């Protein structure tokens, strides 16, 4: 493998995955980096950056600090900023150079936590892995730090996940709240309706804007949960807050919507015996299958791959992240009778969902040759140059093409996919 690409893009890196995962939890996330990681993340990998504030910074590593190993300066800067901004937690991750010189971020996090009293942790990154590893590890570290919080710290989730509670808003916006949401910030949370106590409580895992950037897709996920008769317990990653996250162990089943949530799903299963269902409710037929799988998993306490039994090899190639692509393949089969193979292109994530006729490939040349076998290709528009004269159906993926095509991204969740293909 040459690790080269002549013309296609590259997936978001682990550092962006960490920041994206932790964005809404009121913490301060710092990439130990000279310059560039923050700009890349906030420009291309974070659609919330303009409208929703979050404490995302870089350390501003200099050549002198790198050569001399001056970790004291980094710790001092963290403490100064934390004392001023008062984050709910501090998360640290490394760009390539700190990884190269062996900076001990765990030790720095420990020292900063000791000094400030603010929960601090490091997420292992090196800027050379994909966003899936970064986001997955970030969700996992957050769970290790907060999912086991004291019961007294827990609070009821809001009935509308687009409405933050007052404390979370204070963390994010300070005391001056945006007018659009400040009307909904009473400390009296909406009382759940009586029948909600009978509903299965579902956590949505792996929801980060790098995979789910649009409001439409989030609205559709929530609509799916509601109309399927479930109750949303926690949406991990988007439209959420730390208080909701602390409540995560009260969920009865997890819906794993992308590989970014896999480490957390495994953790919740091993620690709290909460089973997960792998799959994205694309289309209508597959949405029904996921609904059935959620109920079954809740009863059996076993993990379920919702695509199992709904995949057949075909002449359509779906490029992208494994869980989302496999789910789309199942949806196409159930709703349209179209058989599709998955060409997993991140080179990272959950490979267990792939079938023998699927492949994982993150090399441009090999991928280009592989694509010659197919008649139709579904993928991000930045893959188009290596698809020769194939029929190409655009499915923008924020983690690959950033904000380039977000406005053209179709919403396929819990809706008819007739117009898509």
């Amino acid at each position, binding site marked *: 493998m040459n690790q080269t690409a002549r013309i296609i893009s*590259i997936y978001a890196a682990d550092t962006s995955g960490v920041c994206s995962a932790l964005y809404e939890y009121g913490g301060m996330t710092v990439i130990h980096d000279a310059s560039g990681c923050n700009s890349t993340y906030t420009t291309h990998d974070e659609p919330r950056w303009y409208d929703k504030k979050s404490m995302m910074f870089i350390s501003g590593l200099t050549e*002198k600090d790198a050569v001399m190993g001056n970790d004291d300066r980094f710790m001092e800067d963290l403490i100064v900023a934390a004392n001023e901004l008062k984050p709910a937690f501090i998360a640290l991750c490394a*760009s390539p150079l700190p990884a190269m*010189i062996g900076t001990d971020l765990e030790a720095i996090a420990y020292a900063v936590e000791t000094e400030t009293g603010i929960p601090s942790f490091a997420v292992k990154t090196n800027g050379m892995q994909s966003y899936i590893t970064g986001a997955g590890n970030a969700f996992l570290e957050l769970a290790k730090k907060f999912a086991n919080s004291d019961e007294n710290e827990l609070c009821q989730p809001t009935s509308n996940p687009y409405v933050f509670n007052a404390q979370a808003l204070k963390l994010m916006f*300070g005391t001056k709240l945006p007018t659009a949401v400040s009307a909904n910030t009473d400390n009296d949370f909406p009382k759940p309706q009586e029948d909600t106590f009978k509903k299965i409580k579902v956590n949505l895992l792996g929801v980060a804007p790098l995979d789910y950037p649009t409001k439409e897709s989030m609205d559709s996920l929530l609509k799916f949960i509601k109309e399927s008769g479930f109750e949303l317990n926690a949406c991990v990653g988007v439209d959420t807050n730390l208080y909701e996250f602390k409540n995560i162990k009260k969920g009865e089943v997890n819906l794993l919507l992308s590989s970014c949530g896999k480490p957390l799903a495994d953790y919740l299963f091993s620690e709290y015996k909460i089973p997960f269902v792998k799959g994205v409710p694309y289309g209508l037929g597959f949405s029904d299958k996921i609904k059935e799988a959620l109920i079954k998993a809740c009863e059996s306490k076993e993990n379920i791959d919702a695509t199992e039994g709904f995949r057949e090899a075909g002449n359509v190639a779906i490029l992208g992240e494994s869980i989302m692509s496999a789910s789309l393949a199942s949806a196409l089969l159930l709703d349209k009778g179209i058989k599709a193979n998955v060409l997993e292109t991140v080179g990272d994530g959950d490979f267990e969902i792939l079938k023998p006729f699927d492949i994982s490939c993150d090399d441009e*040349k090999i991928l280009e040759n592989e694509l010659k076998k197919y008649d139709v290709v579904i993928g991000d528009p930045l893959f188009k140059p290596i698809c020769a004269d194939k029929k190409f159906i655009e499915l923008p993926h924020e983690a690959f093409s950033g904000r380039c095509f977000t406005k053209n991204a179709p919403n396929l969740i819990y809706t008819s996919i007739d117009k898509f293909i």
Partner: protein
Amino acid sequence: MLKQISLNENRIPEGVRISEIDFDNPFFDGLHYNAPARGVWNIVHTGMLIPEAHQIYVCAQGCLRGVILTAAEMNRMENMSWVALREQDMWNGEMESRVIEGCSHIVDEMKEHPKCILVYLSCMHLFEGCDFKVIAKELETRYPEIDWVDCYMTPTMRKTFEPMVMMKKSLYSPIKKLDVDKKMIGLIGCDRATDKSCEIYSLLEKANTKMWDITECKTYEDYLALGAASFLISYLPVVGYAAKDLTNKLGVKHLAIDLSYDSNEIEENLKSLADALNVDGEFFDALIDTNKKKAKEALIKTKELLKDTPIAIDATATPRPVGLALLLKKYGFNVRRIYTDAFSPKERIAFDELCKLDGSIEIFPLMDPTMLYASNEEDISSSEYLSIGQNCAYFCQTKHFVNIVEGGGMYGFDGIVNLCKLIEDAYNNPKDLKLTISHKGIACESCL
């Protein structure tokens, strides 16, 4: 004394009075925040100025992501390739061969070889002691028809050589000395076109001399023509290293005529250009008198329109934000804020004068973490500020802003006239703030 910006009770950062700030070290350099203003050019935008050239970045995934998507947003992916460094590359001692084989693979995949390839190496190469000369020599041997240019994406080295300073040097690396054309000079260091109405062009016309400007080059041959320049000029600050390299290579002089808003400095700079072009004094005096008068009239007219509108200026809009603030203040404008992380040594005189004129002007940093909350202060529907620059437009949450970076191609007294026109336009015509400042690389094509 270093100032640490703090938040007030409403979590809004509080500025520092210019009279109380230390010119040499204005702010505590801690963690860095990044405001969502994207107009400033990066090394990808600048590298794309070389016609018919191709860029290859050899670095880690995290570093590749920003540059690749810069090209994608410019609709220039056909000019962009990459080689990803993985963890094993740090230890296996094959860093050089990774670059050589990666670049060779990319070139071999091309239907036509480009005339020039810019290879960007990263901090990892630098810290591993990668032998750049071996890489260059091998690639030149394998593909002698291609001009290989070593470029550097090494932000860790920014305290000694900023990436953009290195980029400006690399930008002119392929230029070779040609027979001197006495009727041609080269403008270096500018990413964007300079207004044709400015005094530089008036002097050139009088001297029957043409200007080489990279923004006007359509072919690689147009670009290489800089090698025939009789002398070089520049007016933006980051070009010093490139100018030194070029003057050594071409054996010609370099004239730095810095962008300024001070009448005397503008006149001195233009006089040095006029002398170098052998423009007669009578023409020069008439040109300066006329344009100086126009600039003064424009400033008075614009002030009458703006009245007491508060004005903010940021350091991405112009390399001389203090000088610009001083000029506007002298004409009665209500300059209230300057956003900058540091002051250029060339602004010392303007700084001292501005302190005396109005010590209450507030200085804010751009990157301090507390600036995350700066935009909390203003409601975009009622912000009264007129901002010069994208960052302060965001911080002040105003729709009334002059959308420029690095001086906006305006120079001299004519530049002041044109800037006044833009200020008036900003005052009269609100812009969509989010849409405008989200566009990466001002004036570049964008798919957004």
